[in-house]
């Protein structure tokens, strides 16, 4: 045989090398697949849950949510969820960015109106848990959560979601907060005086841009919050004749919410024959009643006029900013995440 055509045996892989290399590769693949398992021990789930609970607590207590635009009177809690659900980007309960741990009752009521039924999207309520995961909890992992808020003195509770299952470890955070309630303007009727009307003036400019010496926690917010005018001290037969705005026609009083409620019924349906003797007259101007479109054409000062059939006041107008005050109530906020 001609050596020229014979294959050389030099520089060939030996069978031993093939076997050795194969075993090495198998071992290498084996170890490489276990590397991810090695990191499992680094991830502590309770710490993760605690962090999410802490973050959620901070957002609820310190963030006013989004949208939040005081200059244009646009707030997430005033949006109707049936049509504007996607515009609510972030849920937060604080009254403002610089007022941590002071929550707004109007936001709380909206936040805790939820449903887990399939028809929730058609109603003005949040879908549990999808909306909250998307707008509050965030993150790719579908965390479960339970959020509760309770006033310390009255024990009035709000709650969202179910308690964590027994023996299930969960992340926990608790915050002490204040709840800013709707402003109340208490008015004492003066039965044997000269005026048959109670007139309450409002300086619209002061209400949109409150004086800087009043802290946000004490400001009367007629846009986001209800405003309650509570007239007491009727000592003889008294009937409410009418409620109107001055200048006349500047604002209408619709039959649909948001409107003005008189003793919890819309003004248009209020029975004017009701005798107020020894009773309270509660006039509630609902949140959202005043809005940018309505305010655009108004004079700087408007007046709400309550007319009665007998004398109830000395005839002098009352200034809303001087008599109205939002109560602050201490409460506890708890977040559980698992």
């Amino acid at each position, binding site marked *: 045989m001609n050596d020229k055509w014979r294959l050389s045996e030099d520089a060939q892989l030996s069978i*031993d090398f093939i076997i050795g290399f194969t075993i090495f590769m198998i071992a290498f693949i084996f170890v490489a697949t276990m590397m991810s398992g090695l990191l499992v021990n680094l991830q502590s789930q309770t710490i993760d849950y605690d962090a999410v609970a802490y973050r959620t607590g901070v957002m609820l207590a310190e963030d006013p949510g989004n949208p939040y635009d005081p200059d244009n009177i646009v707030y997430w809690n005033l949006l109707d969820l049936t049509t504007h659900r996607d515009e609510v980007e972030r849920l937060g309960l604080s009254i403002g960015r610089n007022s941590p741990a002071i929550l707004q009752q109007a936001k709380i009521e909206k936040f805790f109106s939820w449903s887990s039924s399939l028809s929730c999207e058609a109603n003005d309520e949040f879908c549990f848990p999808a909306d909250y995961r998307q707008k509050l909890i965030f993150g790719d992992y579908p965390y479960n959560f339970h959020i509760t808020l309770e006033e310390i003195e009255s024990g009035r509770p709000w709650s969202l979601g179910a308690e964590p299952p027994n023996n299930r470890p969960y992340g926990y955070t608790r915050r002490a907060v204040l709840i800013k309630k709707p402003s109340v303007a208490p008015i004492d009727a003066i039965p044997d005086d000269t005026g048959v009307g109670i007139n309450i003036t409002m300086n619209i400019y002061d209400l949109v841009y409150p004086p800087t010496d009043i802290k946000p926690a004490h400001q009367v917010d007629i846009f986001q919050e209800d405003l309650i005018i509570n007239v007491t001290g009727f000592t003889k037969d008294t009937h409410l004749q009418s409620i109107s705005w001055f200048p006349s026609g500047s604002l209408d009083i619709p039959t649909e919410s948001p409107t003005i409620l008189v003793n919890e019924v819309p003004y248009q349906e209020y029975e004017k024959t009701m005798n107020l003797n020894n009773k309270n007259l509660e006039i509630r101007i609902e949140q959202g009643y005043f809005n940018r479109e309505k305010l655009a054409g108004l004079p700087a000062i408007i007046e709400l006029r309550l007319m009665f059939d007998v004398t109830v006041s000395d005839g002098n107008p009352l200034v809303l900013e001087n008599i109205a005050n939002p109560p602050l109530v201490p409460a506890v906020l708890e977040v559980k995440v698992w």
Partner: protein
Amino acid sequence: MNDSGQLYTIEGVAAAIMMVITAYMVISSASIFTPQEKHVAQMQLEQLGHDALVVMDTPGENGVQSNLSKFIASDEEEDFNQTYYKLVNQRTDGTFDTLKYNVTIYYQTDTGDIEPIDFFKKWDYHRENAVKVTQWSYITDIQVGESTEVLNDKVVLVEVLLWRD
């Protein structure tokens, strides 16, 4: 072929299996201790303690004295205790946590020295894991002759030592 210096296949396989088993045992038994858990609990304690002080230092109405300032001004340590206890201990299900605290107030004397006052000290502190939270508060309207008169018209530092019993 010369077979000196060659790995015999059967021994190679055996050695490889032993190495793989060793590697598996080492990796599966490795667990790393993370000491952050304690840190999270302390951070939460700090947050809650400070929240409670801020809530107490927020006046109920504009221009009115806050509860914190009022309790210190009139030396009502039991009123302080009742309010603060609920703020840090009450849970939403109506049960109570087991947080305990001591309160010290630091103020500047007329000569410029910083002096402490034990404002509230009901529980003994036995070196549990504690946090300190502070809040500046303006103290005013103290009647002449009261024990806290030295604090009148001063900004004082309210320091709470807070621990879980």
